């Protein structure tokens, strides 16, 4: 069964606006990651937040994590047309080490209109 569920499924905004995407998960986690996938390309790691962190920044990205609500949000500020992509949250499941695996949500399709 899926671990992460993103919300909304699709988001369309104007260039310059902020985009907020949410992810909920089911079991306790060690960390939560966000990935971006441009059309026809592989996934690219954006940012990782550990379970003992509440907020993390990377450039125009801001990620929050609320372990009590089992949810995370990804905020992209001052969006650009180049941010148009699908965004996935991912969490490791299983014991750490070789048996651990990342499970991904279904993704959010972000469209940034020029």
């Amino acid at each position, binding site marked *: 069964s899926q671990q992460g569920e993103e919300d909304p499924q699709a988001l369309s905004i104007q260039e310059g606006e902020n985009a907020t995407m949410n992810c909920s998960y089911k079991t306790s986690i*060690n*960390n939560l*990651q966000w*990935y971006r*996938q441009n059309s*026809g*390309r*592989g*996934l*690219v*790691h954006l940012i*990782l937040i*550990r379970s003992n962190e509440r907020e993390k920044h990377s450039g125009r990205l801001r990620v929050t994590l609320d372990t009590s609500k089992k949810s995370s949000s990804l905020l992209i500020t001052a969006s650009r047309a180049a941010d148009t992509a*699908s965004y*996935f949250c991912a969490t*490791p499941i299983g014991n*750490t*080490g*070789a*048996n*651990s*695996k*990342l*499970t*991904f949500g*279904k*993704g959010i399709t972000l469209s940034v209109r020029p």
Partner: protein
Amino acid sequence: DTAVSQTPKYLVTQMGNDKSIKCEQNLGHDTMYWYKQDSKKFLKIMFSYNNKELIINETVPNRFSPKSPDKAHLNLHINSLELGDSAVYFCASSHILTSGGRGDTQYFGPGTRLTVL
């Protein structure tokens, strides 16, 4: 200086054929993965290998056989292709996943779009 590469990028074939997808990483990682992404973009792990040893096999039909000749390569061979195998297949690599360690991030290849007719 591509980190994770896959060949071919596109693969169109008839039902019943056997095909292979190759993956190579030059990041020095010890763990490699195969994922399948369906038409709704849902990404599901199929296999993981650590130091050439199969670690995770997510109840994938035995028509799918991964082979890792060395740590830098993980190939995927598919026998008797079926229509439902049509998808995009991604290879990825990482250091071994550890709590707070280097292995938390996975690096993905560009994908192989497989179409079975």
